[in-house]
């Protein structure tokens, strides 16, 4: 699955990335109706203005206004009522499509989404699968996201589907879609959430029916691989690499290089030698002990990592000397 995302800029037309659903196409259609309507009215205003500017330009023979035309009630009524009718048509049209965006059909595949600084996690409740920054869905199937945030506001945006919704702490929000084409598509966070807001990205991977089944079967295979290798895999798969380096450089969080067995100094003045328990605690309750010079920004991974996965990460850190 190492293929790159479909480009937003080069796919689709001049304005939009390639639409991935019928609804997205309908929304684009309404946009073009609005845009071309606006262009026609704008050009009308522009040409009339240019005509006036040329015709009534101040010259020696036109030093004063030709005639003081000051009002015309019919015109005033016309340019109040006609725009009002036009925008009301747009309002009703937009409202109808909005209802289609908001109300999911009955038979959806439900996926729970959690946004946290600065990654997305996806949980398939029926299959007991969790993924990070990648969500796999079958093509032509209605998908429903139930979303919540662990910290500040986030927003999940899939440009190819023309959908987005705020992800809020302490309150669920919903989003549904039906992707009609296989491929790999971009997901953005579009509610400002801090230093790594622009790196809070994820991939929507739309698979054919068979490939999706195959993926479901393979997704739980992590049981078999050695702990060290599992930890190495999780380092990128669970987005640890967003904040922790392997080469000793300091990022948002402390580096993992040489972490095991090192004395850690905390903001409250205490210190401890880094061992298995300390690392486990830092993963599950990261806010409990803060290393000096770092902010309290790491979200808790409680529930996001199994015990075996935590063990894997600990074993992996041990190898980073």
């Amino acid at each position, binding site marked *: 699955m190492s293929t790159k995302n479909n480009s937003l800029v080069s796919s689709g037309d001049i304005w939009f990335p390639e639409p991935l659903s019928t609804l997205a196409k309908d929304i684009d259609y309404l946009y073009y109706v609005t845009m071309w309507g606006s262009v026609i009215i704008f050009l009308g205003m522009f040409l009339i203005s240019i005509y006036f500017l040329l015709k009534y330009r101040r010259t020696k023979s036109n030093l004063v206004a030709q005639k003081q035309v000051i009002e015309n009630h019919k015109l005033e009524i016309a340019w109040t009522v006609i725009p009002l009718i036009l925008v009301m048509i747009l309002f009703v049209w937009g409202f109808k499509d909005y209802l289609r965006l908001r109300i999911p059909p009955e038979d959806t595949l439900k996926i729970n989404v959690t946004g946290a600084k600065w990654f997305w996690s996806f949980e398939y409740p029926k299959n007991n699968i969790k993924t990070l920054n990648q969500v796999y869905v079958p093509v032509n199937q209605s998908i429903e996201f139930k979303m919540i945030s662990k910290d500040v506001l986030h927003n999940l945006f899939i440009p190819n589907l023309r959908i987005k919704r705020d992800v809020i702490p302490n*309150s669920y929000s919903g989003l549904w879609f039906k992707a009609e084409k296989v491929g790999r598509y971009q997901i953005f966070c579009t509610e400002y959430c801090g230093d790594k807001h622009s790196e809070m990205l994820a991939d929507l991977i739309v698979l054919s029916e068979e490939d999706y089944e195959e993926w479901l079967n393979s997704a739980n295979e992590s049981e078999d691989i050695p702990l060290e290798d599992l930890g190495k895999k999780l380092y990128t798969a669970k987005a640890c690499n967003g904040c922790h380096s392997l080469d000793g450089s300091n990022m948002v969080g402390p580096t993992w290089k040489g972490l095991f067995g090192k004395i850690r100094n905390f903001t409250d003045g205490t210190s401890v030698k880094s061992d298995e328990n300390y690392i486990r605690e830092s993963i599950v309750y990261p806010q409990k002990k803060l290393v000096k010079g770092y902010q309290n920004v790491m979200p808790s991974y409680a529930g996001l990592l199994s015990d075996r996965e935590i063990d894997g990460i600990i074993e992996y850190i041990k190898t980073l000397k």
Partner: protein
Amino acid sequence: MGHLENINFFKAAKGFKSWLITVDHKRIGIMYLLFIVAAFTLGGLAAGIMRIELLSPDKVLLTAKQYNQFFTLHGAIMVFLFIIPSIPAALGNFFLPLQIGAKDVAFPKLNLASLYIYVFGALFCVYSMWHGAVDTGWTFYTPYSTTTDTSVISMTLGAFILGFSSILTGMNFIVTVHKMRAPGMTWFRMPLFVWSLYATSILQVLATPVLAITLLLLIVEKTMGIGIFDPAIGGDPVLFQHFFWFYSHPAVYIMILPAMGIMSELFTTFTKKNIFGYKAIAYSSIAIALVSFLVWGHHMFLSGQSDLASTIFSALTFIVAIPSAIKVFNWISTMYKGSIDLKTPFLYGLSFLFLFSVGGFTGIVLGTLSLDVHMHDTYYVVAHFHYVMMGGTVMGFLGGLHYWWPKMFGKMYNEFWAKIACALIFVGFNMVFFTQFILGSKGMPRRYYSYLDQFQPLHQFSTSGTWVMGLGFIIVFIYLINSLFRKEEVSNSPWGGITLEWQTTSPPPVYNFIETPIVDNDPYDFEKVKI
């Protein structure tokens, strides 16, 4: 005070102290102008640095945190220190009393107090830039703003204090319009700039307290840990957005209405025509002021507010677009059978006309529920509000500044360079922001330090526009300063304008008019008034 009658207000008193304790609305207006130009320069530099950072998705000048601080700084300065006070406090202070034939505003000392409060609030904002600059965006959304370690408190306290300056100026203008009009100046004989300032003042007085309360609640939550907006301690983050936009949407009209007022002045003077549809324009200002209180929820279609609320806010948003459209149609019609003089102020007027219209049409897109879902929080929104705020208000401000410059200082600037600068600003502006419509609809989210490589060419083109625009502003600065050293004095009405400010000397005497003017005509009656 008889000896002051013929002396212009610059020469009436001398020395630094005479400015610090002045109660002359004209001097206060000029001091505001200095601060506002300084704020615009600072906010503009911040924007320029942001755009340079965006030349590449990797680091150019700033870290991610610094970038976030820069866009917060840019937004907060431009909104609170520049655009809200820009036209009302600087040009409005100077010309409202002159246009209604008054000696001063109703409460001259309160007017000076507003200026001091503005400076005091601005100092708070500057302090918070020095001391752990805020990285929340100018919207201070919770719970991010209650959890960040940057100095949110001093920044919001600054905005809180600035709010009082805004409220006092608004109150002062309302009373001035009601009580200080010259004999014979009925409501419908007031220039339309006065109408627009009146509508703006109503908004300032009614809406600003809500912002003050909101920011105060934010400070209470942050310092005392009482759960109001932060869900971690039992608050509701969406409540903050309701409070914030209840002020900040009307505030958008606080920003644009005065510029619309300037448009009416420009379109009459430079066509030598009475305004087309005086009452339609005057009433539409008031209609905008009222309806603008009922549309705040269109910033929150995706926030989790109920779909019914979103639907109602969408419908009301379309309705508030109509009065603005009416104004635009009336300005265009004013040119009909006129005698049109394409001087620099009018070029800015035409720039406003076209750029503001683009902002309006794209606002229709954003008001449409289904379309907003895709465009929300992308560069499309950034482009839209810059077309309204910069294409509208800043063009209006520049138009007004060039229009009234000879009246304020008694000197004329170089028309040739003024036209060159206007063209550079217009072209540069469109390079920067039209590109951003495409970036946005292609999916580029706003407030992104880094971005996908595929967006780079569009970002680079947008950034190159800032240099064209910046050059334009530098030229404006040079020829305006240069004009002050010119020898030639200008006449009372260099453009042939006939509203009352053009019937006194340039610059005006301390009490504005040698004799109280008596009004017996419409403000733009070019057949009756000959200058």
